[in-house]
Structure formats: structure tokens, C-alpha cells
């Protein structure tokens, strides 16, 4: 499932700045898992430390959208 959701904010006609037409937010997978089932597949300890979770199903990547936002604003 794609964890990024987007919405299009209202753009006022007198906005002095270039409008941001698309805003994004992240919905992490734990929101959709009310109770974790037992015996889920696991990452190796090294992988778990790197990704910040022991279970692949709960992994939520963080990718900076700073640059993307800037190019959109220009």
C-alpha cells in the first residue's frame, strides 16, 4: 500500500506567494493494524536496527520531500 496521501489545498486569488497546489502526508501502516497477529515474518537484527522495526509489515520509509516541495513552489 502506498503510504503517501495527497490533497489539494485551496488557492486564494490574492495569495502573494506562489501557491503550493499539492500537499502530502504519510499514513504509517500501524494505523491499519488494530492488533498485531503473532508469528509475523521478521527482519534480521541488522536490518531491523537499520529500518527501525523488527517486522517488515510495520516498516514505514522516510523520504525527504523537501526538494520536491521546493521545485513545486518555484
Amino acid at each position: 500500500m502506498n503510504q503517501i496521501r495527497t490533497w489539494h489545498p485551496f488557492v486564494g486569488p490574492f495569495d502573494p506567494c506562489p501557491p503550493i497546489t499539492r500537499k502530502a502526508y504519510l499514513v504509517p501502516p500501524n494505523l491499519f493494524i488494530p492488533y498485531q497477529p503473532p508469528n509475523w515474518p521478521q527482519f534480521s537484527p541488522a536490518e531491523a536496527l537499520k529500518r527501525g522495526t523488527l517486522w517488515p509489515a510495520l516498516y514505514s520509509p522516510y523520504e525527504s520531500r523537501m526538494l520536491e516541495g521546493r521545485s513545486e513552489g518555484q
Partner: protein
Amino acid sequence: MSAAKKPDEAYDQLLTELQQLDFVLVELTLYLDTHPYDMQAVQQFNQLAQRRRQVAQVYESRYGPLLQFGHSYSRYPWDWANTPWPWQV
């Protein structure tokens, strides 16, 4: 105070392994808080706790105590204050 011997590669490996084991133990702790009857997870937790103890013992015998106030043994001479300190590696 004498400068500590420059840590070798095994130092990094041991610390990394400790960090990885500690992280998995944290994850399993949180999981077991809500799943106290998951026998497999309890077994995994105990195995990892044992492994962590072994790794910590190897680390402490080579590089000095990880904990203070009697939770780790000290070598002679007393080397608690020797660098590198955790925030220096």
C-alpha cells in the same frame, strides 16, 4: 591519564552487534507487553537475552565495563574513566 588503545575493528563489530540485539529486544519487549501468551516470541526473547549477555561479556572482558555500580565487572586497574566513551565512537 593514559590515552586508550585505538579500538580495533572487532570493537565496532561488537558494539554494532550489541546495538542490534538491544533493538530487537526492545521490539520484542513492546510486542510481548500486548502478546504475553506468544510462546515463540518469549523463547526468542530469552534466546536473544542470553546472546546479548554473551556478547556483553566478551565486550567487557576486552574493552572495559558497560555499566557501573556493580552491574559490570572491572578489570585491573580501574578503567571506567578510560576513553573512548560511548558518545565518542
